């Protein structure tokens, strides 16, 4: 019985060239464009300089900051007020003010002060920009000292060296971080919205009646809807992984087996959710509106764009009920850190729970009676 149902569903999908086009081309295009746009790397901070000193020292300092590669010198103003104007107009992100007699004070009085003002509307950018500038000024300070104090080096001071190493993504490449997450998002959107529309479509076209009067069991009906979309979503995932490898050069540290194992369960959960929505909706419009709202929440509260730890506690609880957040986490763990099945045990259990819950509910709620 199930065999015939599958045959019917697959034929329905493959005989509609429009669906195939949307199913395969849309994710591909998005996977090629989105990672290009989704680059939060803090670089190219626009620097404005207000130099009241005009000495060799002040010029050296500015050169050193620009040479660091994080900053682009965009504005050179005679007064702080004019420098601030540049920040207001979004021309610059950060002003460095060098006071008059900067060099003289430093050499004669051993002490000098610099002023830095940062446009802090984007808090992370401001924090990092301020920290970079301070680091560079610290280095510069060291250069000045080295120049004035010859051997013996002042080593009477206890100094702590802080060495930092960046694991798993030493080049700090944002694409490596975003591509796995975006892939999850695409597979989810395709899977859930098509599954959500499917049963409703049969309702609207009236073909559901034929199924209702046939001897098909409820679970067979749900399985018959689930398996074809599961196969489709898995093939989209495969194409996405190939794109990630060929175009972005992302080779998973963990095994493909782990990814597919998790994805298989995850897709059952997500498709189950789609089917569940469609058993409630009467028209395609309703199901689209609801699945759009749900997808948007899933999308924005998944940790794809902003870290989950930064969210307030209640929102973190919301993410616990969001299957997408688990898959994104797992995908990043497996692809970037090489986590194995044992490391993602908790996530597997959670997603299994979702799968049983959504599908069980969908089967219970699918009624062969109309009205």
């Amino acid at each position, binding site marked *: 019985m199930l065999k015939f149902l599958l045959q019917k569903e697959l034929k329905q999908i493959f005989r509609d060239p429009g669906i195939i086009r949307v199913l395969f081309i849309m994710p591909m295009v*998005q996977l090629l464009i989105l990672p*290009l*746009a989704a*680059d*939060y790397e*803090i670089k190219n901070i626009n620097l404005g300089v207000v130099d009241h000193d005009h000495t060799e020292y002040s010029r050296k300092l500015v050169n050193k900051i620009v040479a660091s590669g994080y900053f682009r010198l965009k504005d050179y103003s005679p007064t702080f007020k004019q420098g601030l104007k540049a920040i*207001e*107009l979004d021309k610059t992100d950060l002003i460095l003010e060098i006071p008059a007699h900067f060099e003289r004070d*430093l050499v004669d009085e*051993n002490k*000098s*002060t*610099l*002023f*830095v003002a*940062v446009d*802090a*509307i*984007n*808090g*992370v950018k*401001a*924090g*990092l920009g*301020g920290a970079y500038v*301070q680091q560079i000024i610290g280095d*510069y*300070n060291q250069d*000045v*000292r080295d120049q*004035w104090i010859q051997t013996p080096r002042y*080593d009477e*001071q*206890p100094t*702590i*060296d*802080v*060495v*930092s*190493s*960046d*694991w*798993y*993504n030493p080049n*700090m*490449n944002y694409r490596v971080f975003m591509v796995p997450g975006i892939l999850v998002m695409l597979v989810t959107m395709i899977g859930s919205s098509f599954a959500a529309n499917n049963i409703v479509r049969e309702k609207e076209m009236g073909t559901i009646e034929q199924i209702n009067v046939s001897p098909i069991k409820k679970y067979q009906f749900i399985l018959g809807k689930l398996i074809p979309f599961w196969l489709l979503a898995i093939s989209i995932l495969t194409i996405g992984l190939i794109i990630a490898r060929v175009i972005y050069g992302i080779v998973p540290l963990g095994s493909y087996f782990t990814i597919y194992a998790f994805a298989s369960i995850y897709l059952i959960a997500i498709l189950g959710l789609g089917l569940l929505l469609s058993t409630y909706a009467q028209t395609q*419009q309703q199901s*689209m*509106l609801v699945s759009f709202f749900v997808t*948007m*929440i899933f999308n924005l509260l998944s940790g794809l*764009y902003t*870290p989950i*730890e*930064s969210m307030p506690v209640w929102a973190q609880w919301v993410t616990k009920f969001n299957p997408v957040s688990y898959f994104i986490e797992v995908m*990043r763990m497996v692809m*970037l*850190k*090489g986590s194995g099945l044992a*490391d993602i045990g908790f996530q597997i259990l959670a997603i299994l729970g979702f799968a049983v819950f959504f599908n069980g509910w969908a089967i219970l709620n699918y009624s062969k009676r109309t009205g």
Partner: protein
Amino acid sequence: MKQFLIFVKKEWLHIWRDRRTLFILIWMPIVQIILYGFALTNEVKNSNIAIFDQSRDEATIQISDEIAASRYFNLVKNVYSYKDIGATFRKGKIRMAIVFPKNFRYDLLHSNRAQIQLIADASDPNTANTLTNYASSIINDYQQAVNQNAELPYTINTQVRMLYNPELKGAYGFVPGVMALVLMLVCTMMTSIAIVKEKEMGTMEVILVSPLKPFRIIIAKAVPYLFVSLLNIISILLLSVYVLGVPIVGSIWLLMAESTLFTLTSLSLGILISNSAQTQQTAMFISMMSLFLPTLLFSGFLFPIENMPWPLQVISNVVPSKWYYIIVKNIMIKGLGFESVWQETTILIGMTAALLGISIYKFKIRLA
């Protein structure tokens, strides 16, 4: 004029008598603003860390305590080997590990040099960078406290001032963006569906044979939705000030005027979409697909536009929410006046005129 007002009244009744839709229209923006206003932030705080302390002396314990006490870090685990660190990272439990070498304090006091290693999970580069910076500055503070009596020669002090947002809150950057996103989606979807609905229900025929000019029909459709949107703007602004804690520094009237302008742009976009769509489903699909992602991507509140490759930067210019985002940031948070946003305002006016012009030109007075 009288005919026109009657049409407006008809549209108004459409909205008013469909209580369920009206309910959704008023509440959806409120829910979204609260949800995303709170949840969408990239502020780094409470990050889980592990400490691998091979020395366990007075100095390392004090530094560990200071780090664990700061609001940025949350010490979840003490680990005892590098292998352990790797395993904890792979489980996704921590964002950073701090390693103290053996004999830390002894080295610090006797050879004047000691090392601390910060290992960050750089799969998320910005968080990694920020955490490393926070930890380094805490360690620096400790070091300065140790050396407080000794004055270093040739010292440059740097005073850093954070303008507009001294506490570096995430909401200041995100709330204006969420405002643009929500207004855009709600307004465009509302109008596009309203017009297509008449086509689907067959009532368009009745309207088309009326003596009213196509131009007026369109305007009459948009007017009631403009009122609903104004209500939405007011509720959104109230929420950002009183619930999300983002103040309105500049003129509230200017902000209202600019928001109304942006609403007009979105409404005209909705009208244009409704022209080319035949069914409500298509209209909704176009509004969702062509608006949600581009607005999210190209407004500049999630992803910095200056990092994108230039073709995408060019594309971002045609996204109305990008300009609105700049306007809201300048007025609401920087507190600037009209002279700072006149260019963006002109662009929005131009877009609105163009969108309306195209829709009127393309408005079919004959049914297919």
